[in-house]
C-alpha cells in the first residue's frame, strides 16, 4: 500500500470524481462529503510520500512496470512532495468551505461543481508529480479544461472572461507542447531526467534554445506574468467564490512549479545562467510585474479584484527569485510557492465569508465589518500581515530569502520592487482596516451613543477552514528553518 502512495494521491480523486457525478445525481448533498473524504485521503498519502522523501530520498514510481525512459514515471523529490501536500491541504480546506457557498451561489449544480473540483485537483496533482514532459501537457490541459468550466459556472460576465482565459490558456499550453516537440526532436525522449542527461552530454543547439523559449513563454502565459496577465483578474473576479478560492492559490503556483521543474530537472544551471544569460531581462520583467500588479491593485475598489492583482505581483516575486540564480533567491521562490498558496487562500476565504454575508466585496461595504464579523476579520488580518510580510507569518520569511537573494545577486531593482510592493500591500490592507474598524456601520450612524453590535458571522464550515489556514500561515512561518533545511536545500543542492 505504502509503495503505491504516489499513484494513489492522483488516482483517488480521479475515481472519486466519477462517483461524485453518479451519486450526486441522486444525493446532491453527499457529493460534498465525498469530496472531503477524497482530499483527506489524498493528503494522508501525500504526507506519507513527504515523510518517505525526507527519510529515504526521492521516490520514482513507474506505471505498469515500464522502466523510466519508456513508461510514464512519477518522480517525487523534496520540492514536489511539499507542493503536492500543499495542493491536497488547500483542496481539502476549500472543499469544507464550499458547502454553504455553493448552495447559495449555484443551487442545483452541486454535484457538477464537486466532480469538476476533484478533476481539477487531479490534474494539478498530476502536473506536480509527473516526471514525463508530455504527461505534464495532458494533465495541464485536464486542469485547464475543468478550470474553464468551474470559472464559467456563475454565468453572466463570467462567460466572456472565461472565454478570454480559454484562448490565453490554450496558447500557453500549445507553446509548452511545441517546446516539448523541439526537445523530442533534439533528444528523442520525453522523460525529464532522461532529457536532462542527454542534453547535458550534447552541445547546446538552437533547437534547445527554441524549446526552452517556447516552454518558458507557455508557462509565463499560464501563470500570468505581467504583460500576459490580462486574462486573470476578470476570470477570477466573476467566478463563483469557491472556485476562485481554489484556483487563485493553486493554478498560478503550479505553473510556477512547472517553470522551476523545467529549469532544474530538464535544463540545467550552466545552460540557463551561463550560456543563455537572460537573467537580467527576466528579473527586469519580474520587477515590472511586481510594480504593475501593486499599482493596479491600488486602483481597485472591489476587494476580490484587488487580490487578483496582488496575485500578479506575487508571480513577479517567484519568477524574479527563481531567475536571480543563487541559492537564496531559489529558496525564496520555492518557499514562496507554499507561503503564497496559503496566504492567497486565507485572503480569498475571508473575502468569500464577507461576500457570503454582506453580498459584495466593495470597499464601501466594509464599513463596520470588524464589529459584524470579528472572527472572519482575524483570519483576514493574519492573511494580510503575511502578504505585507510581518514576522511570525510565513510571508515574512519568503520575502527575507528573496531580498537576501536579490542583495547577493546585486539585483537592486528587484530588491526595491519587493520593498515597494510590501509598502503598497500595507497601504492596501490598512485602508481596509481603516474603513472596517473606524467607520461605523451605515445603518447605525444615527445612533452615536450606543452603537448596537450585531454580530453576524459566516457559518462554521466557512470559518473553520479560514482559521485553520490562518493558523497554518503562522505555523509554516515558525517552522521555516525546518522546511528550508530538510526540503528546499536538498533540492537546490542538485541544481546549483
Amino acid at each position: 500500500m505504502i509503495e503505491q502512495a504516489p499513484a494513489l494521491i492522483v488516482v483517488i480523486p480521479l475515481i472519486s470524481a466519477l462517483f461524485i457525478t453518479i451519486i450526486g445525481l441522486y444525493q446532491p448533498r453527499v457529493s460534498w462529503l465525498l469530496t472531503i473524504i477524497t482530499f483527506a485521503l489524498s493528503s494522508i498519502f501525500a504526507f506519507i510520500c513527504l515523510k518517505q522523501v525526507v527519510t529515504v530520498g526521492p521516490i520514482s514510481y513507474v506505471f505498469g512496470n515500464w522502466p523510466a525512459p519508456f513508461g510514464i514515471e512519477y518522480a517525487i523529490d523534496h520540492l514536489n512532495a511539499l507542493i503536492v501536500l500543499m495542493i491536497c491541504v488547500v483542496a481539502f480546506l476549500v472543499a469544507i468551505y464550499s458547502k454553504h457557498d455553493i448552495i447559495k451561489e449555484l443551487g442545483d449544480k452541486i454535484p457538477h461543481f464537486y466532480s469538476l473540483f476533484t478533476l481539477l485537483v487531479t490534474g494539478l496533482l498530476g502536473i506536480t508529480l509527473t516526471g514525463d514532459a508530455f504527461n505534464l501537457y495532458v494533465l495541464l490541459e485536464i486542469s485547464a479544461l475543468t478550470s474553464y468550466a468551474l470559472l464559467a459556472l456563475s454565468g453572466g460576465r463570467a462567460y466572456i472572461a472565461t472565454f478570454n482565459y480559454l484562448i490565453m490558456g490554450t496558447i500557453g499550453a500549445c507553446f509548452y507542447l511545441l517546446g516539448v516537440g523541439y526537445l523530442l526532436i533534439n533528444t528523442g525522449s520525453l522523460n525529464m531526467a532522461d532529457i536532462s542527461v542527454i542534453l547535458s552530454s550534447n552541445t547546446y543547439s538552437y533547437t534547445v534554445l527554441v524549446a526552452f523559449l517556447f516552454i518558458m513563454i507557455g508557462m509565463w502565459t499560464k501563470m500570468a506574468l505581467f504583460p500576459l496577465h490580462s486574462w486573470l483578474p476578470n476570470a477570477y473576479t466573476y467566478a463563483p467564490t469557491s472556485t476562485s478560492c481554489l484556483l487563485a492559490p493553486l493554478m498560478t503556483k503550479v505553473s510556477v512549479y512547472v517553470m522551476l521543474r523545467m529549469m532544474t530537472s530538464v535544463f540545467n544551471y550552466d545552460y540557463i545562467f551561463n550560456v543563455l544569460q537572460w537573467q537580467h531581462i527576466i528579473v527586469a520583467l519580474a520587477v515590472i510585474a511586481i510594480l504593475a500588479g501593486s499599482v493596479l491593485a491600488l486602483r481597485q475598489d472591489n476587494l476580490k479584484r484587488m487580490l487578483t492583482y496582488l496575485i500578479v505581483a506575487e508571480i513577479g516575486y517567484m519568477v524574479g527569485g527563481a531567475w536571480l540564480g543563487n541559492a537564496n533567491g531559489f529558496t525564496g521562490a520555492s518557499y514562496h510557492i507554499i507561503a503564497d498558496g496559503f496566504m492567497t487562500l486565507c485572503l480569498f476565504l475571508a473575502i468569500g465569508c464577507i461576500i457570503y454575508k454582506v453580498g459584495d466585496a466593495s470597499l464601501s461595504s466594509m464599513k463596520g465589518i470588524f464589529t459584524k464579523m470579528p472572527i472572519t476579520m482575524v483570519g483576514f488580518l493574519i492573511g494580510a500581515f503575511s502578504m505585507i510580510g510581518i514576522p511570525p507569518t510565513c510571508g515574512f520569511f519568503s520575502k527575507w530569502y528573496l531580498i537576501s537573494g536579490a542583495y547577493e545577486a546585486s539585483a537592486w531593482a528587484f530588491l526595491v520592487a519587493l520593498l515597494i510592493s510590501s509598502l503598497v500591500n500595507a497601504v492596501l490592507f490598512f485602508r481596509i482596516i481603516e474603513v472596517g474598524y473606524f467607520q461605523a456601520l451605515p445603518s447605525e450612524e444615527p445612533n452615536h451613543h450606543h452603537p448596537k453590535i450585531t454580530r453576524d458571522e459566516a457559518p462554521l464550515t466557512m470559518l473553520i477552514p479560514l482559521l485553520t489556514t490562518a493558523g497554518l500561515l503562522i505555523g509554516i512561518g515558525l517552522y521555516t528553518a525546518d522546511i528550508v533545511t530538510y526540503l528546499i536545500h536538498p533540492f537546490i543542492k542538485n541544481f546549483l
Partner: protein
Amino acid sequence: MEFIINYYNYIIVVIIMMLGLWGMLALSNLVKKLISMAIFQTGIILFYISMGAKKGASIPIIKQAYDEHHHPIHQTINNMDYANPLTQILMLTAIVVGVATLGLGLALTQRVYSEHKSLHEDEILETLS
C-alpha cells in the same frame, strides 16, 4: 533553396501555426477565434507527425517469420523501415485534448451569445461598460 527542400514540411507547419496564432489574437469574432485555435492545434499536430515520418517507412509492426519447423527466424530490424510510432500516439492524445477544448469553447461562445446577443468582441465590450 536546399533549405526549403529539406525542411518544407516544417516551413508549412510554421505558416499554419502562425496563421492560427494570429487569428486567435487579432480576430474579433469569437467563433473565428476558436477556428483559429483549431488551426493552431492542427499545426502542432502536423509538426509532431512530420517529425516522426520517414520516407518509404511502414507501420511499426514486426511480422515474425518462422522456418518449416515453426521456429522463429532471427531477423535484423532496420530502423529506417519503420515510422516512429511515438509521435503519432502523442498526437492521438493531443487531438482528444483539442476536440475537448474546441467543444468547451463553442459551448462558452453559445452562452456568451445568449448573454450579450453578439459574437463580436468590440460589441460585447460595449454592452459591458
